[in-house]
């Protein structure tokens, strides 16, 4: 079988985490080495996954509905690439940033566990297995939010953990409903059975439970209230991971899989997604506008930007899905960069309040230009990457004659721009803030992560060059656009 490397995507970070907990308790350097090497290895594996053809792996050699089937299709490999790319750059950044915290081996262990959990969610083809790895990633992220063990961290982590556990319970109940109705857990097999049995009250109830559970993980309005507490409270690299990739691999990706590949996209379902997406976009950006705490502002923008992706998926056309996925990719890059920037600012100045900053562009040139490029990208200014994905979403709206949603997307984008002009103005321009005479640029590992991400923001539009698009984005679009695949078709991948 061609897919024998697939389980390694989970096994490698798990092994790293276990060894880190076993051997690296005393030595921070060893923990750093293990963490960096393992994440680099995972990155290499996911690049391999992108370039190699789709394949599957039956764990334990048991054929699909009996055992667990791992599926590496276009969508999974795209998500893996996003996750491991961001994880790698964040890991390098954290080598220097995490010096301020104690408990280095715990950080690396939890980081690797979170990575393993996200990879596990993305590559699995089994609904219950998805739940298990979702729990791994969630539990690791609760612990990482509480990493500083200060008052606010603990409070945010408790809120996040309670909401997250409720979401997981809803998910498990939904999975139980579906198992009772279809008698199987494999997603492709379940889709097949759901097609045969037709819609029943129980499938609708299961859909509502599953959608609310995943929406909770993705922080879609009205399930977003934990995010603006949890993401700012975590250490900056973890905020970058949470906002950049965790909410996407646990929330957005799973919603896309559920809607398109398990239930099959019906017009009602797509309309629901459109409304959810539009509401998230609007409420997120309005709440963001009045924030002065930089990380909180960024967190509310995550709610808003996730709305764009859901809106793109809700359009249901290949162009809309392409826009949603491309925006997912771009958002991972620029949102994690923005959180890394906020971490650099916080470390250099000791504050997150925009009102207290000012005039830092001369003192911190690298941070300042990387922040600027990420801000322009998230606000959709050409030629930065965010512009292209938003353009595709708007074009897809227009293509379907949904003028209102198109105009809404543009309006939200303008509001986003206003919000980030505020950030630029107050943090970097104007008079140098009091007490910042001795502020210096952050050390090189932090700069390295930020610079690479900023370059990706600038050249992100190149993803639309036909050759690259054929390699990375198109297979993923095809997976969703194709609708449900039968088990036989999935196995033959």
């Amino acid at each position, binding site marked *: 079988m061609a897919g024998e490397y697939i*389980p390694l995507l989970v096994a490698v970070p*798990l092994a790293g*985490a*276990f060894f880190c*907990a076993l051997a690296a308790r005393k030595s921070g350097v060893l923990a750093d080495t293990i963490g960096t090497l393992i994440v680099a290895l995972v990155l290499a594996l996911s690049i391999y996954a992108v370039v190699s053809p789709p394949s599957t792996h039956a*764990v*334990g050699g*048991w054929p699909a*509905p*009996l*055992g*667990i089937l791992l599926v590496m299709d276009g969508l999974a490999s795209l998500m893996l690439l996003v996750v491991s790319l961001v994880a790698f750059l964040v890991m390098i950044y954290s080598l220097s940033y995490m*010096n*301020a*915290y*104690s*408990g280095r081996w*715990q950080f690396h*262990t*939890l980081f690797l*566990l979170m990575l*393993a*959990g996200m990879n*596990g969610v993305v590559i699995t083809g089994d609904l*219950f*297995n998805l739940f*298990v*790895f979702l*729990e*791994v990633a969630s*539990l*690791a992220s*609760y*612990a990482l939010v*509480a*990493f*500083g*063990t*200060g*008052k*606010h*961290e*603990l409070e945010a*982590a408790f809120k996040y953990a309670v909401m997250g556990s409720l979401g997981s319970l809803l998910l498990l109940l939904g999975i139980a*409903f579906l198992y*009772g*109705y*279809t*008698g*199987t*857990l494999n997603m492709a097999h379940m889709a097949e*059975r759901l097609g045969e049995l037709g819609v*029943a*009250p*129980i499938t*609708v*109830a299961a859909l*509502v439970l599953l959608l609310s559970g995943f929406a909770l993980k993705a922080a879609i309005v009205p399930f977003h209230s934990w995010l603006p507490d949890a993401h700012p409270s975590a250490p900056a690299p973890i905020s970058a991971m949470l906002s950049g990739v965790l909410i996407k691999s646990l929330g957005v990706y799973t919603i896309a899989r559920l809607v398109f590949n398990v239930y099959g996209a019906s017009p009602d379902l797509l309309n629901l997604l459109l409304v959810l997406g539009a509401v998230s976009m609007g409420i997120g950006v309005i709440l963001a506008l009045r924030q002065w705490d930089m990380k909180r502002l960024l967190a509310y923008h995550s709610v808003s930007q996730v709305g764009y992706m859901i809106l793109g998926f809700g359009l249901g056309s290949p162009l809309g899905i392409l826009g949603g996925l491309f925006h997912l990719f771009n958002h991972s890059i620029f949102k994690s960069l923005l959180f890394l920037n906020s971490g650099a600012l916080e470390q250099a100045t000791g504050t997150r309040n925009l009102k207290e900053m000012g005039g830092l562009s001369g003192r911190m040139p690298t941070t300042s230009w990387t922040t600027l490029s990420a801000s322009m990208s998230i606000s959709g200014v050409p030629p930065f990457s965010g512009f292209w994905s938003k353009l595709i979403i708007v074009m897809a709206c227009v293509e379907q004659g949904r003028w209102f949603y198109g105009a809404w997307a543009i309006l939200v984008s303008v509001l986003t721009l206003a919000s980030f002009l505020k950030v630029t103005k107050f943090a970097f321009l104007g008079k140098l803030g009091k007490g910042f005479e001795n502020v210096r640029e952050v050390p090189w590992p932090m700069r390295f992560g930020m610079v690479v991400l900023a370059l990706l923001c600038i050249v992100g539009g190149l993803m639309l060059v036909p050759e690259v698009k054929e390699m990375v984005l198109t297979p993923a679009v095809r997976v969703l656009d194709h609708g449900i695949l039968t088990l036989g078709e999935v196995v033959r991948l």
Partner: protein
Amino acid sequence: MIELYIVMALMIAGALAAVEMRNLLSAVIAVGVVGLGLSIVFLLLKAPEIALTQLVVEIVAVIILIRATLTLEDSGEWLGSRPLGSLLGALFAALTVWVGIVAFKSLPAFGDPLMLVSQRYLADAAADTGAANIVAAIILDYRAYDTLGEATVLFTAVVGVLTVMRRKGVKDHGEK
């Protein structure tokens, strides 16, 4: 199945007691009783493996929860409710039960499961894996990958607890 209904009714009563009982320690004990009832239901429903696990896990959970109540020195407002939350909770409960009554009629009837995939486990597990305990064959062979995830969840929780319980999280300037 009258005994099933009796135990389940007792469990619901115990859960209500746990939620509304004045003393926090008593509430924890009430949850322990609910868990015990759950273990009995598992036995009634022919799941001895789960019953055993539930029983021992229950003991650990109750020990941990009791430990948490022991730090209490402040009394009062233990029972306090949040008005908005109560309303939401009651609404959720009413809605869910109503949806449940409608939806469960389309599930296969209680006592008559579909067993689409499971039939093959029952028929082939002994020949496939050589284990007499079919549940063990599933968790450690057919779906061993799930078990790896489960072990990882526990591992994550232990590391998480150790992380949260560190004396000091931030090295330099302590509390923010």
